[in-house]
């Protein structure tokens, strides 16, 4: 059954609000990353990698719609990481 135009407009507005929220989060995290990169009294690398991971997941889940799209896409996209993680662990050593 087709979604009534009023509720469709409401859903579109909510979606746009989510995009703005994700954008603000990404901007704030980028600023925080720059701030953290100049600090010396904290585990800098862990913080930076953590923030980068959060940013990546925000883009993938909300902008690339993996949160609401078919799970097959997620499986296809994340499967190569099974090869990537050992590669990135072994290569620098």
């Amino acid at each position: 059954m087709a979604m009534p135009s009023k509720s469709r407009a409401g859903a579109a507005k909510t979606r746009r609000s989510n995009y703005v929220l994700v954008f603000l989060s990404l901007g704030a995290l980028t600023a925080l990353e720059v701030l953290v990169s100049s600090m010396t009294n904290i585990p800098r690398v862990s913080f930076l990698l953590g923030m980068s991971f959060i940013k990546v997941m925000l883009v993938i889940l909300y902008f690339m719609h993996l949160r609401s799209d078919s799970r097959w896409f997620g499986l296809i996209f994340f499967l190569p990481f099974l090869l990537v993680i050992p590669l990135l662990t072994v290569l620098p050593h």
Partner: protein
Amino acid sequence: MSQTVIVHDEPRVATTTGIDNRKLGMWLYLATEVMLFSALIGGFLTMRTRAPADANHVLNIPITAFNTFVLIVSSTAVVMALSAIEDGDRKRMLRWMVATFVLGATFLGIQINEYRILIGEKHLTTSSLFGSGFFTVTGFHGFHVFVGVCWLGVIIVQTLRNRFTTNERDHMRFEIFGLYWHFVDVVWIVLFTIIYLI
């Protein structure tokens, strides 16, 4: 007042998986890109461990942070354009597309300027392991941004000629472009942290 375009839906092509083949193809392509960039980043990290720890002191972090922000804004512009297509609002769609195009071109302009400064200071691909890794990884990424900007340029021209509208087929075409663009953004988020900040 927003301009509404009549939507001419094309019949959906039924697939055994229920998944659109074009979208499936793009996700498969992105999976191969994950492997490509992982190999590049892995290679960069290997070189990085053999180069001096402060090899990235020559890089300009504030300008690159701004460039990262530019790419994030462009990704937001893409989802806003997609949202406008879903609303059947051609004028808004075109506005966000042009914004994305300008932001993508700005990113490339800043990156080219960064290369110009580094080459001017004799930091070349042949001068150090760090330089070699840096230009290879960021160059590959920059090429992907260039391809995305060209792709979007074609879509904008088609929109101006009314050959790209807000119908279901074109919605999917733009969604596929969006997946590519967001992936390029994701790669840059990782590169910014690994190359510039750590």
